[in-house]
């Protein structure tokens, strides 16, 4: 069965939009973020025929590449000085909002507290790497591409940052 493009686009928005929303809104001021997000979604939906990958990971990498390009095109300066740590109370507000659809079990709460501790304990240069990898969900290759680093350098950096944060939490 051949899927019609408009309905395919609806599916893409449902799956892609929520994750890209956080990515875009964390990078540019909120008053401009909605427009940028629309541009990103348009580019994803209309560029689907050019997507050459075959896995979920490749698809996400492709989506984030489009988002990064759009952000860099339009908001290069703002994009350069992003990544201000988000205060823990704001993070908890987001977690509480997520609980409306998926309640948080006591074990989940402990896990989330621990993870939040790791993030807040990490040094600024580590925070950016951990945030990109775990919160945005970017793969090592995507971070490497964005920061113009080697894949292994990113992988090792994230490993070191994680170990360091864990030792600070111990």
């Amino acid at each position, binding site marked *: 069965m051949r899927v019609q493009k*408009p309905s395919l686009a609806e599916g893409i928005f449902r799956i892609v939009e929520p994750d890209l929303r956080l990515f875009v*809104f964390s990078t540019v001021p909120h008053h401009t973020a909605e427009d940028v997000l629309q541009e990103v979604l348009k580019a994803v939906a209309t560029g689907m025929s050019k997507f050459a990958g075959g896995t979920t990971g490749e698809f996400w990498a492709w989506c984030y590449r489009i988002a990064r390009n759009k952000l860099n095109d339009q908001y290069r300066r703002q994009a350069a000085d992003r990544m201000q740590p988000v205060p823990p109370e704001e993070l908890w507000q987001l977690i509480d*909002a*997520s609980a409306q659809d*998926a309640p948080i079990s006591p074990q989940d709460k402990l896990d989330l507290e621990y*993870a939040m501790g*790791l*993030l807040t304990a990490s040094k600024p240069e580590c925070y950016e790497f951990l945030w990109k990898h*775990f919160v945005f969900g970017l793969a090592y290759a995507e971070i490497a591409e964005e920061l113009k680093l080697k894949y292994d350098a990113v992988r090792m950096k994230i490993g070191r940052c994680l170990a360091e944060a*864990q030792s600070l939490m111990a």
Partner: protein
Amino acid sequence: MPNQHTDAEAKLQKLGQRLRAGFAKQHPAQNLEAVRGAVREQYEQEQKAKREKTITPPVPKKEREREEPDQER
């Protein structure tokens, strides 16, 4: 140590999922009509191009050859 590492990674991934979901909940999509419109427009253009490709008869070779002397004049 490797297990501790994996455990911490799993917890951070869980946090990431929660934050993305929470953010989408707090900031729901305002209006995706412009995006839908762009997709619809592109789709219609593609469909139109396909139809035109199948409907437009190819220009007969002889006719093209006959036109050439006129263009030179």
